[in-house]
């Protein structure tokens, strides 16, 4: 982002206020990406697992099996839609819809990039490229993720099948258990960033130095991001919890095929099954995107030097998301499924206490740094970046009738009173 300072769009193009168009652009980019990549994800997963297990994988339809997902999708579309007997018809039909709607709703607040604008007075500000720049963006994603379990639970219950019901029960217990560790791990990053807005969290990483006294070219680099900044434990906890939250291997107990046939979607066929499939993959993209934004610097390039800064931020974000997807596939190919009690013990007895303790340690360390910074005559930029920046936050623009909150000063215009060194503007 710092390297992209050279390009700044004018805020007003004739009568059109350009930053107001940003959410729609974000909607097109993100929805386009998600819907295009969905069949691709199936192909990627099968090919990568095949490579890891030393076999060929799909290679019949199209070159290198690239058309295999197309064939799968066509098959799912034209399959017979079976309605089993004795199901609770209304809930049976609505469950996949709930799953898919919530999955798409959750990914709306992910921040893809920050677009620099210049207004008529020559002031520069950035607008986050996101569908909804909500000031509680992170909580919103967590809320939607916690609601997603309804699709699975209701599918399991409405199918009137004991395997489905067991799958649904497992899903509900598992998601509730791992949500806690997930939230606490994210809290560590929120503590460092001082905001729940995803754009602010990424910007906090952009202005951070990896350690006090680090050379200036490392500012906002891969070493300054929160995966290291929060001390490595939160990102590990979050990554484990995100796999469990999306019910993927090795935590795919709700659909464990060796014990529960297919778990909660045993009784679903054709498009209704495809909707569960879609929701699962979109949820994977969402939590990977959250991981990328909160711990891995979102749209920031790993180093602020020429070859990296030439790639647009959206691409960096998507690269990071796809790395998360690769991790999912890797885990699925490598690890055996956990036993149920081991799953619960890991969530409650290992991850939750560790996350709690780490949160306290991190808060104490931050407080100590802040104290030292406030007592010292010249505060280091490091401590300045940690001080939570209290901003006047407008609500969602459509509701409060406020101008878009994204029109706030970005990191380019230093917030008055904060200790951010103006040197952060130095474009290489």
């Amino acid at each position, binding site marked *: 982002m710092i390297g992209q300072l050279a390009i700044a769009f004018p805020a007003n193009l004739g009568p059109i206020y350009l930053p107001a168009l940003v959410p729609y652009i974000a909607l097109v980019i993100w929805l386009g990406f998600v819907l295009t990549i969905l069949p691709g994800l199936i192909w990627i997963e099968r090919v990568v697992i095949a490579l890891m297990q030393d076999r060929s994988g799909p290679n019949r339809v199209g070159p290198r099996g690239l058309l295999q997902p197309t064939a799968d999708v066509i098959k799912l579309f034209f399959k017979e839609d079976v309605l089993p007997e004795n199901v609770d018809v209304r809930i049976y039909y609505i469950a996949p819809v709930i799953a898919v709607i919530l999955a798409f709703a959750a990914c709306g607040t992910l921040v893809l990039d920050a677009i620099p604008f210049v207004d008529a007075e020559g002031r520069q500000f950035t607008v986050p490229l996101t569908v909804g720049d909500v000031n509680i963006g992170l909580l919103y994603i967590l809320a939607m993720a916690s609601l997603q379990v*309804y699709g699975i639970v209701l599918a399991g219950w409405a199918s009137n099948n004991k395997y489905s019901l067991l799958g649904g029960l497992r899903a509900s*217990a598992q998601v*509730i258990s791992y949500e806690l560790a997930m939230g606490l791990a994210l809290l560590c990053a929120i503590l460092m960033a001082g905001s729940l807005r995803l754009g602010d969290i990424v910007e906090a990483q952009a202005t951070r130095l990896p350690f006090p006294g680090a050379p200036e070219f490392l500012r906002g680099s891969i070493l300054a991001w929160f995966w290291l900044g929060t001390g490595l434990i939160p990102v590990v906890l979050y990554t484990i919890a995100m796999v469990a939250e999306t019910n993927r291997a090795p935590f795919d107990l709700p659909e464990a095929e060796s014990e529960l046939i297919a778990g909660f979607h045993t009784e679903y066929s054709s498009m209704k099954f495809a909707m569960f499939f879609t929701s699962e993959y979109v949820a994977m993209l969402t939590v990977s995107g959250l991981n990328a934004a909160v711990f891995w610097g979102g749209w920031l390039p790993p180093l602020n030097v020429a070859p990296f800064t030439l790639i647009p931020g959206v691409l960096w974000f998507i690269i990071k998301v796809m790395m998360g997807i690769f991790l999912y596939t890797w885990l699925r190919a490598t690890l055996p499924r956990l036993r149920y009690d081991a799953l619960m013990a890991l969530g409650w007895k290992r991850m939750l206490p560790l996350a709690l303790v780490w949160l306290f340690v991190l808060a104490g360390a931050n407080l100590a740094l802040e104290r030292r910074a406030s007592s010292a005559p010249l505060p280091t930029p490091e401590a300045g970046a940690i001080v939570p920046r209290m901003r006047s936050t407008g609500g969602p623009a459509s509701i409060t009738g406020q101008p878009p909150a994204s029109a706030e000063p970005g990191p380019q215009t230093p917030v008055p009173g904060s200790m951010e060194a103006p040197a952060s503007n130095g474009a290489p």
Partner: protein
Amino acid sequence: MLILFWILALTCVGASIAMVVTQNPVRSALYLVITFLCVAVFYVMLSAQFLAAVQIIVYAGAIMVLFLFVIMLLNLGAPQALRERGTLQPFFAAVLGTAFVVMLLLSNSLVALSKVRPAAPPEVYVPLGTVEGIGKNLFDPKQPWILPFEITSILLLVAIVGAVIMAKRRIQDHTP
């Protein structure tokens, strides 16, 4: 805004009534979820986004999922299993509910809330419902909320300890 309010209000009240009336416990729980979601949207309409998110995460996302878990685990799917017979409870509930609604309406006419309410939303946006607003109000020593807040947390802690002790005792009873 007003149209949205009325749609939500009718959905909310309708879902609450359906929750009480429905025989099927799972459906009943789902109607309660709809009510919670409506309340969350009300919070957003009042510019209290943080409360809305917490409402969804805590009530709809965690507590109601646990409710559903218990209902499904006990397999209360049969509507007859929960039907109460020969109790006066529905009668009293109806009487008290009506009294409550009448009281609300009376209080509205007595205080004349509709006259007090400003016609337009205030010009200055006070971020009361955001994380910063709630945090500042809750932990500000000048505000009276810090003591109730801490006492509530102790109450929750007591509940957690109680739950753990109950669970432990049952294990000891079963494995002498």
